[in-house]
């Protein structure tokens, strides 16, 4: 698979599109406390996450994970790496 295609498929969750379902593939460096909270809330490798809605300026995301809804600030989601 060409490198460009990989780049296209992989992204951070704050760049995700509303209504799409993604699979968590990893985590980049971020605040450790926030990463720990994400793990506890079910953001673990291989888990599927759906962006349900975004706020007006797309600074807050409403995501569906493990069958429940969670609103998270977009800046925090930048440490969650996903693929379609």
């Amino acid at each position: 698979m060409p490198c460009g295609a990989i780049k296209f498929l992989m992204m951070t969750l704050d760049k995700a599109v509303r209504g799409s379902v993604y699979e968590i593939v990893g985590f980049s460096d971020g605040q450790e406390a926030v990463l720990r909270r994400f793990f506890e809330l079910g953001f673990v490798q291989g888990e599927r996450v759906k962006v349900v809605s975004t706020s007006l300026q797309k600074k807050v995301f409403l995501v569906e994970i493990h069958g429940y809804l969670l609103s998270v600030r977009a800046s925090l989601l930048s440490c969650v790496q996903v693929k379609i």
Partner: protein
Amino acid sequence: MIDVLLVGNPNAGKTTLFNSLAHANEHVGNWHGVTVDAKEKVFSSQGEQFRLVDTPGIYSLSPLSFEERVAVDMLFQNADKKIINICDQNNLRRNLYLTLCLLESGFDVVLAVNEIDRKQICKVDCEKLSALLGIDVVKINAQKKRGLDELVSSLKNAKKTPILPYVKKINFQENAKKTRKFVEKNKIIAKTETNSSQKLPEQKSEISHEELAAFHEVSKIRYAFIDEVIRQSCTCTGQVYGESKFDKIALNKWLAFPLFLCVLAGIFYLTFFSLGAFLSDMLGKLLEVLTTPILTALKNSGTAAVFVDLFEHAILGGVGTVLSFLPQVVLLFFFLALLEDSGYMSRIAFIFEDILGRVGLSGKSVYTLLMGFGCSTSAIMTARNMEDRNAKIKTAILCPYMSCSAKIPIYTVIGGAFFGAKNIFVILGLYLLGVIVAITISKILDVTLLKSQKQSFILEFPPYRTTSMVRIGKILWKNAKEFLVRVGSVMISMNIIVWLLSSFTFSFKYIGGGEGVSMLEQIGRLLCPVFAPLGFGNWAIVSSLLAGLVAKEVVVSSIAMFNGIDLNATKLLSASIMLSTSVVFFASRASVISFLIFCLLYTPCMASISMLLSEIGRKWTAISILIQLLTAYVVAFVAYNLCFACEIFGFWEIFLTIFCIFAVFFAFFVIFRKFKRRKFCQNCTGSCKNCFKK
């Protein structure tokens, strides 16, 4: 006595269970983080005494916020006590994560599966779940008090905590050693933990990359185990917890704000105008019917005039003022309770987060701030639900800048007297100014004293729910009682102090409306020079501002009293006409504008100050008062001089001058910023692109 700790995820129903088990009346709500401190109560059941402790909601044993730390510290300091771990039946997958953390740490746990919602997303087979986890599992309904006897029986005969099969499985993982050590360490320390300075790896605020990787691995294994447990013991419909069709409107980018404004306008209208005003009126009439005979009897009995005056104006006046607020406060809390229980609060926080985040506030601040337009006192009370302490203090400090309903008589009577039909624009301008000042102060506080800890905005969406009227009744009773005791006592005592100051001279001679200079008038005259630069250096105005510290309604009645008008005998319109003759008090329209702005921004009423004291403490209340006085003085001074200049030179001339000054400053700012950014890299004269990067 058996000590029991109530532990669970936020919004799982801990406080509802606490209230049901211990017959308490603690505050609950259908959103995240209602309980912020531990609460304790003793109760008896099945011939045994229990000491039940309700703790704030946690997701795991790694605290992130202050209230989570309270709960986790409490857990580890009471590692030998029994635990009721309450889980929401419809959100079991996420809730069981905490259960596993507790079991791994060796706590004696009884699992209470709470059926909060009538609609069941997940049907749980408690026997299978109990067999899989190795602990007692009891199905309960905390609100309807179902299954509580079984829960108490399980507490008395709680099984010994088992070692879960997946903990052994961790050995086979890639980073087995690290993870195993991590979990083992957790388990051992939890049983022996006595010193809170010794932190578990999960409790540490900073952990290494290796530990973080191990943490992820453990989380993954825990969730894999939960999935297996759910597969074997639950039947799920596949519906998403918290999802609703109504959210298509409530979260829609075009409809969300109008919907919220409609809801708020409805609450405003019912609380402060139609129903609230009617109830206040009725209460006033009832008070009049009850007190008139007492007052007449007191006057006829030959009681000294000073005591009659004290009873009529200070005590009855104080009681009247407190009671006039009571229906509004009760209604406000009624609607607040409805909103809290409905689950709409989380949606409000979501839609406002990115806007208010820019000025260092949280999305959760919006409800408190908008309620400030009604009554600052009750609005400040609603700020306590916020997680971020700095945002909570900021929100409480900003509440008084939202022009409360008590200031409406000042704007309508005094503004109406001087501006006539154009007064509506003055009033709108004042409301807008309050918001602008609040935003500016919030931004300044955010970069100086109260930096917001934005990391906490991870908010769960609860499902929409209805509430029981019994619960609403309990909330209203509790808040009304709190308002009457805490706020009422301060207001009545301040009313008596103002009466003393306005009825006695410094030689303590009673003047009672007769000749002589009261203490309030003398203080007013003493402070006159301070207010002269604002355009109203008049003792009557200054005295009315001092009296307004008790309640803002007093400002108009004081000015009327000094002008010889009995406001009880006249309507607002005629009072306006009569006040317009009092040109001696206000030299020009500029001074009226300045006075109205000062009234808008200066220290709020005593009730609000006492509420600030109880919510944010003495230090921040003092800072808040200082900021309010300074802001009111500076803004009123600038407004007076601008309006005065407009009166002399004309509006457009002044407007153009200010525009030019701002344009020059803006040009300087842009040039200065450009030069500041110009940093040359080594061996370069500034021609390469990299030079402008920093």
